[in-house]
């Protein structure tokens, strides 16, 4: 969808004749070209996953320095993608909002408030001629201590913050969304343990489908907040992720064989 801005795309304080703000759309492009993030709302928690193709050999891998999922508070976590320095700012703002809420009102910030506040913040940067929009999307999972429910939200560069059963953003999001819809999460939620496997499978599938990644290893960063963690946001243990990846690869190989058989028969 290549549409020329033709002069209406120079500033985020300018509408185009067909009612679009091009600068905000360009900011979303930064997200679309970046690493995939998936979030699933399970029956007993939220699972967030990020696909991290290895940058290059000399970068210390894993969560040493290149960390994509952050703790916002004890009960809330956020995975981000897009222009990563912008994502860092949003993480910092979310942390401030959480701290501020606890300072003023005494409890942990409810998920829908945190998402709403971050959405407001992101939106503010789409109103100014002097500021540019954030080129990052944040997928946020949190536990609501008052209503004892989990919430999964995504905040996009234009400032919308919706609640989801399952969400995908970044490179290959369309394929990821199709896979998520097949899981029927809106009718029948899966468990957190299963969600880890599903996320591993979808991210592995997307990694292989992209020919640029031929031969490159894939690292998955997956976190959850669920009954097992006592409603606290934490990283999924490495061996659980490894087991999920093994399962994912087996599943994908089986499906490939089934596809090959079908083709031969047809």
């Amino acid at each position: 969808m290549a549409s020329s801005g033709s002069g209406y795309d120079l500033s985020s304080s300018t509408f185009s004749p067909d009612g679009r703000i091009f600068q905000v759309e360009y900011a979303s492009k930064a997200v679309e070209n970046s690493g995939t993030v998936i979030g699933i709302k399970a029956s007993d928690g939220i699972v967030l996953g990020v696909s991290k193709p290895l940058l290059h050999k000399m970068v210390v891998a894993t969560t040493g320095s290149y960390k994509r999922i952050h703790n916002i508070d004890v009960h809330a976590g956020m995975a981000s993608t897009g222009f990563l320095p912008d994502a860092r700012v949003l993480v910092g703002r979310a942390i401030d909002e959480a701290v501020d809420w606890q300072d003023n009102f005494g409890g942990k910030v409810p998920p829908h408030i945190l998402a709403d506040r971050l959405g407001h913040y992101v939106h503010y940067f789409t109103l100014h001629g002097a500021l540019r929009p954030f080129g990052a999307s944040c997928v946020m999972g949190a536990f609501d201590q008052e209503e004892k429910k989990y919430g999964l939200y995504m905040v996009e560069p234009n400032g919308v913050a919706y609640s989801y059963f399952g969400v995908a953003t970044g490179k290959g999001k369309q394929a990821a969304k199709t896979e998520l819809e097949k899981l029927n999460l809106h009718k029948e939620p899966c468990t957190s343990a299963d969600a880890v496997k599903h996320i591993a499978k979808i991210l592995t599938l997307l990694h292989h489908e992209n020919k640029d990644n031929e031969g490159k290893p894939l690292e998955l960063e997956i976190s959850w907040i669920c009954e097992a963690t006592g409603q606290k946001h934490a990283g999924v243990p490495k061996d659980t992720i490894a087991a999920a990846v093994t399962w994912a690869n087996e599943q994908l190989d089986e499906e490939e064989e089934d596809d090959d058989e079908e083709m031969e028969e047809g």
Partner: protein
Amino acid sequence: MISSRASQQHQMGSAHADYPGLKENEVSTGTTIMAIPMADGVVVGADSRVSTGSYVANRVSDKISQLSKHIFCCRSGSAADTQALTDYVKFYLQNLSVETGREPTVKTAAHLMRKMCYGNKERLLAGVIIAGWDAADGFSCYQIPLGATCLKVPFALSGSGSGYIYGLVDSEYRPDMTCDEGRVLVKKAISHAMARDGSSGGIIRTVVIKPTGNDRDYTAGNALPFGPTGY
């Protein structure tokens, strides 16, 4: 008990000497207030005397203020201070409800009150009890005395008259009481406090807080369970 030095300083209509926190000619709710959460509701009770020294400025005041649909605040200390604090907390809770789309919790109300009391503790003379119902925590009450600690307690007594009835309430309180039994205990205890504390008197107001609705009641000064006529 008034020491001789205090009685020399004591002027007609001034509590300034007795209560160092009160300013000159300021009105005090020297009081008896209490709150008891039960299994099926919260019973909140207060006397109705507002005094400036030995002059009773209002003998039928309402010391139980509503902060939100199911959260109430019992006020003791400076009437002006507690009214201002109550107005602020009520305002903040209203705005909070609009933003969250939910009824506020008793914990939040108590936290807001405590924050304001602690931040201004040098300037305020306020001892309050926050009590009510919320969907998250059920029936609960919090005590915020003069220094602005915030304590979640099984039952709360406060005000100048409360000291005389701790023994009575300690011996008669049972965790499994119903609201009706609780109401009887509250009226009895406050009557006893009113009999011994000069700064407490008038009528007894009670409110029973339930998620289905609140019930306000008062007991007239000549119908107290314990007092000059009931001896």
